[in-house]
């Protein structure tokens, strides 16, 4: 298919349809309302379901219900909305049903602002909702990757039967870039007979399926959580994605950065290369599972003296970087939030202080 110029938000909506997701529930919130405005027109064309819920709380459970009934389903929101949905995400993780959440992150805490931010890293990777669960988090750096990751998210959600999140920032939602859509994917979860509560008549066993998260017997709860843990360990083995940039060089400083921020870092790296300064970049594409080995080996390369995490936050991913670098190198941080994305010039200034 030929390239088209699309806003990230609209492209995410189209990608969901191409991935066979014909069910979308959402509540409006800036900066991602264009997804709903796009899908309200597109869903009827493909015989899909579009519903604007009364709140993000309700939408979370519409997603849970639809996912529990074995249908591919997605919602999109932005930070304060994801806070409200986090309750449902916890339930969905516990009940082990596949669902895709998109967070086009804006500044926080509180109402914060509506400009791009990466302030939800902790919320996405360390919890958000309550209890022992993890969220598989994909972080695109542009519109094309947002499309590819959205499509992949449905497969991952079904492979692991749980919630998967695409975490972009306001820039990725609002920006237009050329995109190519991969071929259409299959349209429904393959193994749903084993778990979906979609009517006993639909399955051979004629046994009922129960979608639940309550396990009053401590042994049962422990078993469920061990099953979840086993999935998260499998994700760590099989789903880690990252990109190295200028990591073949003898860089003195390694930057860790993701999403829109990583693109600014790449420009800074190119500019410094022209000045004869080699800087490397390690960009996690999955925030959970975090590319632990890749970050460790890139940070401990002989030429590398310092590591710096550059984020549109007050310092969140840096804690994972510190954790995996294990004190082998000094780990620094630079970030801005509030919507002013650090410029390449500012990044160069910060890096030069480390040289």
């Amino acid at each position, binding site marked *: 298919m030929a390239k088209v110029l699309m806003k990230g938000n609209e492209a995410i909506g189209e990608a969901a349809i191409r991935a066979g997701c014909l069910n979308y529930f959402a509540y409006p919130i800036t900066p991602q309302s264009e997804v709903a405005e796009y899908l309200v027109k597109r869903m009827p064309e493909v015989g899909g379901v579009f519903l604007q819920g009364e709140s993000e709380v*309700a939408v979370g*459970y519409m997603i849970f*219900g639809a996912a529990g009934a074995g249908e591919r389903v997605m919602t999109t929101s932005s930070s304060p909305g994801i806070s409200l949905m986090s309750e449902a995400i916890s339930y969905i993780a516990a009940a082990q049903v596949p669902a895709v959440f998109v967070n086009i992150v804006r500044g926080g805490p509180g109402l914060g602002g509506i400009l791009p931010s990466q302030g939800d890293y902790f919320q996405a990777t360390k919890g958000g909702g309550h209890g022992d669960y993890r969220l598989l988090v994909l972080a695109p750096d542009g519109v094309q990757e947002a499309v590819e990751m959205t499509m992949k998210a449905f497969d991952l959600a079904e492979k692991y039967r749980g919630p998967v999140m695409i975490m972009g920032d306001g820039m990725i939602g609002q920006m237009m870039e050329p995109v190519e859509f991969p071929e259409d994917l299959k349209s429904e979860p393959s193994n749903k007979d084993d778990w979906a509560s*979609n009517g*006993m008549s639909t399955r051979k066993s004629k046994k009922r399926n*129960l979608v639940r998260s309550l396990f009053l017997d401590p042994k049962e709860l422990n078993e469920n959580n061990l099953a979840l843990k086993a999935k998260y360990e499998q994700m760590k083995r099989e789903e880690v994605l990252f990109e190295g940039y200028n990591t073949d060089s003898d860089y003195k400083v390694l930057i860790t950065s993701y999403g829109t921020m990583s693109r600014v870092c790449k420009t800074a790296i190119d500019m410094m290369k022209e000045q004869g300064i080699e800087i490397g970049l390690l960009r996690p594409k999955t925030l959970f599972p975090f590319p632990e080995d890749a970050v460790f080996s890139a940070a401990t390369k002989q030429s590398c003296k310092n590591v710096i995490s550059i984020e549109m936050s007050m310092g969140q991913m840096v804690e994972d970087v510190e954790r995996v670098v294990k004190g082998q190198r000094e780990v620094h941080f630079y970030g801005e939030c509030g919507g002013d994305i650090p410029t390449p010039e500012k990044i160069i200034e910060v890096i030069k202080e480390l040289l």
Partner: protein
Amino acid sequence: MGKTFSTPEVMSDNKTHYCPGCTHGIIHRLVAEAIDELGIRERTVGIAPVGCAVLAYNYFDCDFQEAAHGRAPAMATGIKRVRPDLIVFTYQGDGDLASIGMGEIIHAANRGEKFTAIFVNNAIYGMTGGQMAPTTMPGQRATTAPMGRDTASTGMPIRMANLLGELVTPGYVTRQAVLKPQQVNKAKKAIKKAFEYQVEGKCFSFVEVISTCPTNWGLTPLDSLKWAEDNLLPYYELGDYKVPE
């Protein structure tokens, strides 16, 4: 002579965890009979609430989902929208539906979601141990209203059927009770009708059932029935609040 009385097919053989004298058992049975009589068990998905009926799926042998507190109508919406061919019902208590889940039930009803909500109103939080509910009567004691409900600071009890009956969107909204055999028979008819409307794809259906809670009211089962007759029914009038055209 053939068998005249048996367990509905959709009821499991599990013994319930409900307290002696509680009317949940009766209401479960009425729902089960309706499902059996309409022959819809194999395409029915129930939604369990948080509250005394949290384990309802142990007593119904059909597909079930379990919601967070108050969110059953949103889950029912999700299921029904993506699979309109399924029969979906929620089974919720007064804390679940009329307090934390007020937003979800009103909007589901107002959108005319084509599922059935069974609302068991016994004027108190049961499972958590007798706290005040939005439906607790003025002066009625609860652990969080030890001197009795003070309406000056907590308002008057909410009449859900009246409230939902006021919505302009068409629907079936009724209030029934299970304190006497005649009431049980009427409630049975109402619950079946609610499911029938859903089977026909007609409208949202809502059956409020006035129930008892001997344990948390601190009364014997028999006294509970009388207390409900004397105190709840005058305020919560029985009857249809909305019937579709």
